C-alpha cells in the first residue's frame, strides 16, 4: 500500500515530496556488454528485452530491472563507453509524477539531462547525479511498462525470470570525495527527501559510510551508502561514482550458497567475510561487485 497522502500534497513539505516508490532500474554503461551480461546472469538476472534503436539490453530478476547500455555517446560529451570497466551510469526512480518531480528538482538546483529519445521513444526526464551518472524519474510502472515502448522482447525468453534466493534491491553504494558527506546528504535530502540515518546504523558487513534512507513505502524504500576515501590510505581516489549495487535478502548464507553454485565468488578475508549480516562478491571486470545485505523484506 502506498502512503495515504493526497496525490497533490504540497510539494516540498511532505516527507515524501516526490512520491518516491523505489527503484525502477539501474543502468550500467559498458563497452563489453556480453561480459557484463554474463556477470549479471551469475547473479540471477536474465536478458529479457532488446532496445529498438540502440545497443541496450534489459536484464530482469523478479521486480528488479538492470539496463546494460553499450550505446556510444549515451552520456553526452563523455567517453563512457570507451572505458573498459563497466560503470553504473543511471538510477531510475519510481515517482508519483515524473514531470512534477523533474521540474521540482530543476527548480531546486538540479542539472537537467538533455533528452535523447528517438521518434516514438520515451522521454525519461533526468538530472545529474554523482560523477556524471544520471538520476531518472519514472512514473509509469504500475499498469504500464516503460520497456514495452523502447524494448522488444527477446523471443522465447521468460519476460519475468524468477528471483534467486529472495534478492531485491537494497540500495547503492556511492563513493564520494573527502568531506563530501554533508554535501551529498543535503543533495539527496533536498531533492528527494532522503533521511540520514544515525551514524551507528549499519547494514551488511562493511562498517564504513553514511546511510541515507529513501522516503516512501516500507516495502520499496532503499538506501544510499555514502563512502568517503579512507584517510588511512596514502594514495586514494577522490572520484565520485555509484560503486556497486546492494541486494537485500532474508537469508544471506543461503543466497551465498545459491550464487556460488552459479559461479559467483565472494570476498573472504580477515576484514570481509560471508556472515548472516552480509557478503561481498569478488570484483570482476575491474570494477563490478555486488553486496548482499540481510533484509527481512521479501
Amino acid at each position, binding site marked *: 500500500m502506498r502512503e495515504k497522502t493526497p496525490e497533490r500534497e504540497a510539494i516540498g513539505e511532505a516527507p515524501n515530496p516526490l512520491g518516491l516508490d523505489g527503484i525502477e532500474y539501474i543502468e550500467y554503461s559498458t563497452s563489453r556488454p556480453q561480459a557484463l551480461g554474463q556477470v549479471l546472469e551469475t547473479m540471477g538476472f536474465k536478458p529479457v528485452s532488446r532496445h529498438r534503436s540502440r545497443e541496450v539490453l534489459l536484464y530482469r530478476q523478479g521486480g528488479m530491472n538492470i539496463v546494460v547500455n553499450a550505446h556510444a555517446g549515451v552520456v553526452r560529451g563523455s567517453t563512457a563507453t570507451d572505458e573498459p570497466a563497466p560503470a553504473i551510469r543511471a538510477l531510475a526512480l519510481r515517482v508519483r509524477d515524473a514531470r512534477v518531480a523533474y521540474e521540482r528538482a530543476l527548480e*531546486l538546483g538540479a*542539472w537537467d539531462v538533455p533528452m535523447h529519445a528517438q521518434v516514438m521513444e520515451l522521454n525519461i526526464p533526468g538530472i545529474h547525479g554523482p560523477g556524471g551518472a544520471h538520476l531518472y524519474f519514472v512514473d509509469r510502472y504500475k499498469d504500464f511498462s516503460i520497456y514495452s515502448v523502447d524494448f522488444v522482447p527477446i523471443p522465447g525468453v521468460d519476460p519475468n525470470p524468477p528471483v534467486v534466493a529472495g534478492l531485491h534491491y537494497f540500495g547503492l553504494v556511492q563513493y564520494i570525495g573527502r568531506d563530501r558527506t554533508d*554535501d551529498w546528504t543535503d*543533495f539527496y535530502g*533536498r*531533492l528527494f527527501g532522503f533521511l540520514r540515518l544515525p551514524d551507528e546504523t549499519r547494514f551488511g558487513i562493511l562498517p564504513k559510510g553514511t546511510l541515507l534512507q529513501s522516503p516512501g513505502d516500507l516495502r520499496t524504500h532503499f538506501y544510499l551508502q555514502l563512502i568517503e576515501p579512507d584517510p588511512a590510505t596514502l594514495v586514494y581516489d577522490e572520484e565520485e561514482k555509484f560503486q556497486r549495487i546492494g541486494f537485500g535478502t532474508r537469508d544471506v548464507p543461503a543466497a551465498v550458497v545459491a550464487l556460488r553454485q552459479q559461479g559467483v565468488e565472494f570476498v573472504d578475508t580477515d576484514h570481509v567475510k560471508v556472515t548472516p549480516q552480509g557478503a561481498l562478491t569478488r570484483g570482476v571486470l575491474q570494477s563490478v561487485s555486488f553486496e548482499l545485505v540481510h533484509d527481512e523484506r521479501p
Partner: protein
Amino acid sequence: MKIDQFGMDTISLAGPLEAKLRAIREAGFAQVMLSARDVVGHPQGLDAAVQAVRDSGLRGTGFQVLRDFEGLSGGLHAYKVDIAKSMIEMCAALGCQVLLACSSTSRHATDDTAALARDLRKLATLAIPHGVKVAYEALSWGRTVNRFMQAWTIIEQADCANLGIGLDSFHLFAAKDDLDDLDLLDPQRIYLVQLSDFMWQETPTFEERMTTARTFRVFPGEGVHSEQLARLVIELDRLGYGGDYSFEVFNDDYQQLPLPVVAERARRGAVWLAEDVLRRSEPLPGAMRLGR
C-alpha cells in the same frame, strides 16, 4: 612554508595568464585566486587555461566571480542560473573548490531575504555534483546585502552544507562593519577571506566604495587600515579559521607595473601577516621588514 595560507589574485596583475601564474609562483606563493576573465580570455581557450593552471603548480584558492545571482525572477533568474552553471563548470575544471558569489547590486532583485536564501540554496545545490562550495560575500554596495552579518543571516537561513561566507576586508572596512561580530560566525563556514587595504579612511557613498574597490586597493600593510587588518586576521585565527587568505587587490597602478614588482609587494604583505601579525614563525635575522 609560512606564507602558504596566503595567495594572490590574478586580477592584481597585467598580462597573460601564464605570466601571472609564473610571477605569483616565483614570489613564493603556493596558491592563486583565479578570475573567470583570465581563464576565458586565454588565447588558446579554456582547456589551455586549465592546463596552464595545472602546470603552474599553484593551487586554486577559488574562482571568481558570480555576480547578481540572487533575488531575480522569471527570465532573469533563468539567465543567471545558466551563467552560474557555466561558472561552476569552469571552477571545477580548474580544480577550485570555492566559487565566490557576490551579493546582488541589481535593482531588479527582490529584497525579500527568504527569496535570497532560496536562490542561494539553489546555487549551492547546483554546485554539489561538481564538488564546489559557494562563498557568499557582501559587497559593500550590495543593494540588500552590504554587511557581512546580513550575508551570514541569509546563509544560515539557506542552511546548506556547501554554502558559506566569503569575507573581504575592503568591504568590511568600507562599510565600517563591527569586527566583534566575527565571533558570531562558524569558522567552518568561512570559505574564503580576501584581504586588501586602501589609502583613505572614509568611503561613505556606494559610488566612492565602488571606485576605490575597483581601482585603488593596495596590499595588506600598504594602506591606512593596517591595524584593523591585523585585528581581522588575528580575530579569524582566534576564531579557528584555518582556511585561505587571498589578496583581492584591484589597482590601476599595479596594472602598469612589471609583474615581479607587484608580486613582490604582495609577498611583503604575506610575510607581514604571517610573521608580524600571526607570528607563524620567528623572522629570519636581517630579513626585510616593513616599518610600522
